[in-house]
């Protein structure tokens, strides 16, 4: 027998932390509401009692069973349609009242349930007390105190949950006051046999709340629907409130009475530390400078200082001086075939090594992100940025995907689910990958190092380009019919700040950092091997052979087929074209391919400066144009897949990819053409086209807004 136990509860109540503790997995946690956006299943760790297996299901946080955003729909669907054998309802003990609101709704579903009061470490620290026996009696279900973070009470919780699931005793809803109960039974009577017999009350309440989904499901006849509608309206008149609010108030009333006799609440300090921090970091004047400073520090330290010191060491010393020459010598000494030596040294070590060299930078970046995510500042960033983003037609919540996107675009695109309105969500999906992800970091560092002599402005300019692209896209797209309209008003719960737990931060850095390394060992490895073979073999003097001149290789042939497309951008060379295309598989490939074509091979021979020949084939403007194109153009296949899933429409997928590619092409064109014209005075057709593109862009930016009906 397999028992499915669903973890349901308010956002940020600790469901994923518990899930990780129960299953030994390493799912994404963070201190803001809406971290988990997809359900996740895992096997219960160390539970193998006889025939029974237990599957734990982590769900996105919900405030109620009437979903507001997309990820909440996932949870409602799972609970109502897949009917797990038991629910573990995670309740944040420091915010009992609000959390129990959902509990009252979960109890109505009839699914056997255990309530787990989480964050007990904090509750105890506040010297507050919970009367468990009383609470169990009031709620009518077992209650267990736990601390998911400290892994306390977990065993008891599981035992209870499994036994509840085995008993399969449906949970019962709490009763409302007499008047409301009579309304509900009146509705039940009117609907008669139409209601599913296993849980008629739930359906009746939902009908009263005018829940569209349920009403649809019941397939009422027009006349019956009218009768019920009239009845609900009459009740609404009596209460002088709409039906949904009547139920909401009634639920909160139930909870108040319950809390009263099972919870000893201390008069909390009216002005907590978090409130005081908020007063500074969301301050009218200080909010933005503080935010800018934090962001600058994060990227400056991880990309430019600490990160790059480590990266230079790995690249120049570890790979350049130690691994490469010794590998080459070792292979020679055992008399290995020349081509194999080439494959290993130039192909694999050159390509994969070029990518692995950036591992330190990426770990440092992830470290900062993990701290940001776990301390509680993320939700504040959304709030601060809302005011500004609103002007560009985006909601402040769009900023969270963008920050996550500095790590990886795939979770970033998924994180957009928490945005209420479809058009804002779609726009966020389209634009969020403009922010350089960790895989684009090597491209930035490569261009900065090889072409700009490590100039400090290059890395920040890449992030700046991303932000400007997002902002201008926001303005331009909002003026089109597809996206017109205001974002929903901002409402978001702000969690307490806390010092990031070492365990969480470590896990998060390890999980994401190691997946970068894994990717280098799989996709990137495979790609560089293919690239190496393609550049090593080709037709010379009419026979297929290992080529002397790389320009005769298959890769050169393939590259030349598409290189003309990029000629107006200043890098119509087959090598650059090939690099950009392999970048679609994974962005690290851009550097990997360059590594094979230019990189370490040279170093091994003459010990010359790394990437020496690369710089001779680019000018400053063509280099920057190449960088911008790769930053803005369609992301890697994984992220494109995420876009396709989240857009859930072929048309929208192509709109997104098309827009990104077009914007990337136009920007690179303008950078190269205008830059070349200004510095060398060469005026060509390309310059004219770039000029037209710029004028068109400005027009799109400043044209009057479309009026929404």
């Amino acid at each position, binding site marked *: 027998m397999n028992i499915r136990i669903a973890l349901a509860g308010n956002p940020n109540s600790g469901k994923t932390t518990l899930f990780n503790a129960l299953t030994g997995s390493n799912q994404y946690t963070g201190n803001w509401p809406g971290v988990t956006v997809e359900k996740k299943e895992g096997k219960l760790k160390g539970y193998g009692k006889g025939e029974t297996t237990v599957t734990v299901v982590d769900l996105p946080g919900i*405030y109620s069973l009437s979903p507001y955003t997309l990820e909440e729909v996932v949870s409602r669907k799972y609970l109502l349609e897949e009917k797990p054998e038991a629910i573990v309802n995670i309740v944040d003990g420091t915010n009992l009242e609000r959390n129990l609101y959902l509990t009252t709704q979960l109890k109505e579903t009839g699914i056997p349930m255990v309530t787990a009061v989480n964050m007990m470490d904090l509750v105890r620290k506040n010297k507050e007390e919970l009367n468990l026996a009383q609470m169990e009696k009031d709620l009518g279900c077992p209650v267990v105190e736990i601390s998911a973070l400290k892994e306390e009470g977990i065993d008891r919780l599981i035992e209870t949950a499994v036994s509840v699931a085995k008993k399969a005793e449906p949970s019962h809803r709490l009763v409302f006051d007499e008047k409301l109960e009579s309304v509900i039974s009146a509705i039940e009577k009117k609907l008669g046999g139409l209601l599913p017999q296993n849980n008629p009350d739930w359906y009746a309440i939902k009908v009263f709340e005018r829940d569209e989904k349920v009403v649809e499901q019941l397939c009422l006849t027009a006349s019956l629907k009218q009768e019920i509608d009239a009845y609900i309206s009459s009740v609404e008149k009596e209460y002088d409130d709409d039906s949904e609010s009547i139920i909401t108030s009634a639920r909160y009333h139930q909870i108040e009475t319950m809390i009263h006799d099972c919870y000893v609440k201390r008069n909390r300090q009216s002005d907590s530390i978090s*409130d005081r921090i908020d007063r500074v970091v969301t301050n009218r004047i200080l909010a933005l400078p503080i935010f800018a400073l934090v962001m600058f520090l994060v990227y400056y330290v991880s990309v430019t200082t600490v990160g790059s010191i480590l990266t230079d060491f790995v690249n120049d010393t570890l790979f350049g001086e130690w691994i490469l020459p010794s590998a080459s010598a070792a292979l020679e000494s055992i008399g290995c075939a020349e081509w194999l030596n080439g494959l290993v040294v130039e192909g694999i070590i050159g390509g994969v090594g070029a990518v692995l060299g950036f591992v330190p930078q990426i770990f440092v970046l992830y470290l900062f992100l993990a701290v940001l995510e776990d301390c509680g500042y993320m939700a504040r960033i959304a709030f601060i940025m809302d*005011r500004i983003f609103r002007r560009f037609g985006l909601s402040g919540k769009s900023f969270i995907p963008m920050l996550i996107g500095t790590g990886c675009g795939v979770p970033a695109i998924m994180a957009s689910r928490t945005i209420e309105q479809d058009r804002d969500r779609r726009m966020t999906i389209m634009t969020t990958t403009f922010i350089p992800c960790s895989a684009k970091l090597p491209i930035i560092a490569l261009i900065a190092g090889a072409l700009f002599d490590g100039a400090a402005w290059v890395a920040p300019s890449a992030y700046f380009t991303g932000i400007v692209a997002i902002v201008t896209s926001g303005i331009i797209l909002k003026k089109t019919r597809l996206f017109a309209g205001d974002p929903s008003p901002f*409402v978001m719960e*702000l969690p307490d700040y806390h010092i990031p737990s070492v365990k969480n931060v470590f896990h998060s850095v390890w999980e994401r950092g190691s997946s970068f390394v894994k990717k280098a060992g799989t996709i990137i490895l495979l790609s560089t091997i293919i690239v190496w073979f393609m550049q090593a073999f080709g037709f010379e003097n009419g026979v297929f052979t290992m080529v002397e001149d790389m320009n005769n290789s298959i890769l050169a042939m393939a590259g030349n087929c598409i290189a003309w497309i990029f000629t107006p951008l200043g890098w119509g060379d087959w090598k650059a074209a090939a690099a950009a295309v392999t970048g679609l598989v994974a962005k690290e490939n851009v550097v990997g391919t360059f590594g094979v074509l230019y990189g370490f091979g040279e170093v091994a021979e003459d010990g010359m400066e790394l990437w020496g020949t690369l710089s001779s084939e680019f000018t400053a403007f063509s280099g920057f144009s190449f960088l911008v194109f790769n930053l803005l153009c369609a992301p890697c296949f994984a992220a494109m897949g995420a876009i396709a899933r989240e857009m859930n429409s072929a048309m929208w997928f192509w709109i997104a990819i098309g827009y990104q590619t077009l914007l990337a092409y136009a920007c690179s064109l303008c950078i190269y053409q205008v830059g070349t014209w200004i510095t060398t005075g060469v005026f060509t057709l390309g310059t004219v086209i770039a000029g037209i593109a710029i004028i068109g862009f400005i027009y799109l930016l400043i044209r009057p807004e479309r009026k929404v009906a």
Partner: protein
Amino acid sequence: MPLTFTAAGKTVKIVKVKGKDDTVRFLQNLGFVEGEPVAVISENAGGLIVRIKDGRVAISKEMACRILVA
């Protein structure tokens, strides 16, 4: 009067949340129901941070205007 008129540090009671859309329903689920005390913690250019039940919620000015308090 709208919640926006409440000074930081003051606690008031909710009279009504105006309108009937998804955001209003969401606010009600968060605990913004009639008669509930709500304390304004701080105010900044974008909106308000308020305490409701034991939670801390950030709301934009635009939305705060629609919360009537007394």
